[in-house]
Structure formats: structure tokens, C-alpha cells
């Protein structure tokens, strides 16, 4: 597994806490449509933009602002861990 694969898997693992089995497809869609990359091309510097888009999309699925903020915080900690 390459580093970018590992990053994609870590992002998916965080998202799984919210979307379960749908997480992998959700993250792949976010990366493909908003970053114009394949999931395997995900880089650490993409994380802020990914957080921004994912929070907006999660806002369509839930009104729980705290949950969305928690997700953003976990993703930010993931980015910090890779820098």
C-alpha cells in the first residue's frame, strides 16, 4: 500500500464513523468530483479542501452541526499527523 493509498484509507476510516459502509464510496466521490483526482492520488495538501467540501455535503445529510465539526476536527488532526 502506497502512502497516498494509506491516506485515502485513513480518511475513509474517519468517514466510516459517520457513514458506515457508504463511507468509501462517499470519500471517493468527494475526491473525484471536487478535487478532480482519483482516490489513490489524494495528497496531504488536499485535506483542507476535502474537509471543506465534505462538511458542506454532510450538511445536506444532517443538521447536527456538532457532528460535522467533529468530523472536520478529526480530519484536521489527520492532516497534522502527516505533516
Amino acid at each position, binding site marked *: 500500500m502506497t502512502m497516498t493509498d494509506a491516506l485515502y484509507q485513513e480518511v475513509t476510516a474517519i468517514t466510516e464513523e459517520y*457513514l458506515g459502509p*457508504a463511507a468509501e464510496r462517499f470519500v471517493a466521490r468527494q475526491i473525484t468530483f471536487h478535487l478532480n483526482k482519483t482516490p489513490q492520488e489524494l495528497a496531504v495538501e488536499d485535506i483542507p479542501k476535502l474537509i471543506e467540501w465534505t462538511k458542506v455535503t454532510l450538511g445536506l*445529510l444532517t443538521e447536527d452541526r456538532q457532528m460535522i465539526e467533529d468530523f472536520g476536527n478529526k480530519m484536521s488532526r489527520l492532516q497534522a499527523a502527516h505533516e
Partner: protein
Amino acid sequence: MTTQTAAAPAIKTAPRWKFGRYAYAAVVLAWLVYALLTLFAPEISNRRFQLSDSALLLLRLTIIVPIHLIWLLAMRGAVAFKNYSALIAGGKESKAIDLIANGLLWTIGYLILNSVLSATTPFFAGTSVFAPLVIIRDHLAPFFSLIAFFLIYRGSHLLRDIAGFTTWTRGTAWIVAAYSVFAFLFVLQFATAPILDGAAAGRTATSIVPHNILLFTLIVPFLSAWFMGVAALINISKYARHVKGVLYRSALVNLVRGLIVVIGFSISLQLLNFSAKYLATLQIGAILLILYALMILYATGFFLVANGARKLAKLEATQ
């Protein structure tokens, strides 16, 4: 200086089950056949109730109209679930979901085919094909049930691997023990029940085929199918509790409730049909009450399935 406008997240066009429209067409066609068979049923079907012609027509209409609505609602739920299955094709839970969706279609198939065949048999009363037709009609239930509940159980078993739960817990052991007692009593009741007069019982296979044969062609398949149905219910309930994803679990609630109701109804309906000798002594009002209650339960189950499938599909459609 140009300003880049970010595109808002969109709801993408979702792939759908390619046979959906044919499924609806099949329901409408089956209902037309069923309606005609019921409206023009020979007088032999009225011997039990002794109703006037107008009362009989009204009775038949009160059955035909709701039945069509029930079948359409059920098929709508199943198609919605199949559409969701198509939407998540390739995903880790997609095979499990597709198996369960196919099992639901088989339960609807049984319901429709059983109704149409039941409406057909009076036309052959007194002919040489009547008995074989009754036997085929009565064996459809275990045949369809075995396939339907096997598919649903197989799908629920795959869900176990996704959510990481175990089916065989102490609670499951108690349920199996209770089912074993039920199965024993069911076989005992069947083995010791008197052979019914065909006219009184509304002519079923139990009054045509020897009981020792029916034990293997009806009882064993039914008990096997119902056991798989119960095991599937256990797996689906555990999946709803153990699967990751707070938003996913929230979207899953109605789907799981609907599946539990549909599977539970299917088992209850088959059990009720098999206990027809008790219904034979009930008044028509009681029979209709039970029938409509089961129909409403069945339709409610599929309504919940459709609602749940739509909520889950929303998780897949946002981008």
C-alpha cells in the same frame, strides 16, 4: 481578477434496477387476471358463505381493490430496494443487499401467484386437474418461501461480515430453543390432526395427499424456510445495531423495520394458510378482519422498506 465560483454539492442521477418497470407491469397484469377470475368465479366458491349475488359481488370488490393496492405498494417497496442495490453496486455490502432485495421479490411473487392460483382452482372443480392444481398451489408456498428466505438469510449472513457481529449468542440460542418447541408442536399437530372434509376445509392438499408425504413436501420445507427467515431477522436486527456510521444507522432504521415486518408477515401468512381448518369454522367477518390486518401489515412493511431505501440512497447520491 476572476472569481472562481465553487459548484454546490449536487444530487447525481442514480442508476436504477433495469427491470423495475417490467415488475410493475407484471403486477398490473397479474391483478387484471386475478380480478377477472374473482369476479367471474363459479358459484361453488359461494357455498361456504351463502351470500346473495349483490353481496357476493361487493365482497369480491372489497377484496380485489385493496389487493391491487397492496401488490403495488409491495412492488414499489421492493423496486425501491432494488434501485438502492443498483446504486451501491460494487460496494462491500452490495452483494448482501442485492440478495435480500431478491428475496423480497420472491416473497411478493409467492403472494401474487398464490392469489391468482387460488382464484383459478374453483374453475376446475369437479375436473381431473382440480386435485393436481390444488397440490401445485399448496406446494408453491414452501417452494417460494425456501428460495425467498434462503436469499434473505444468505444476504443477512454477508451483512454479519460487514458489521462484525456474531449470530450465535445466548439470545439467539433462546430463540432457536423456542423455535424448536414450536416446530415440534407444529409437526405433532399436523401428524395428529384429523383428515379434513374437502368441502369444509375449502379443499387443500392436506385433504388430497397422505400426511406422511406432506410431512416431507410441505412441513419440512416450511419449517426450514421459517427458520431461515427467523435467522435472517436476527442477523438484520444485529446489523442495524452493530454497523458503523451514525448517519448510516439512522438512515437504516426504517429499512430494517420494514424488512422485519415483511419477513414476519410472510411467515404469519403461511402459518395462517396452513391453519385453514380453524378458519373454516370462523365467520366471514373474522376471516376478512384477519385478512385485511395481514394485508395492512404487509403493505406497511414495504412502505417502510421503500422509505428506508430512499434515505440510504440519499447517502449515495450526494456528491
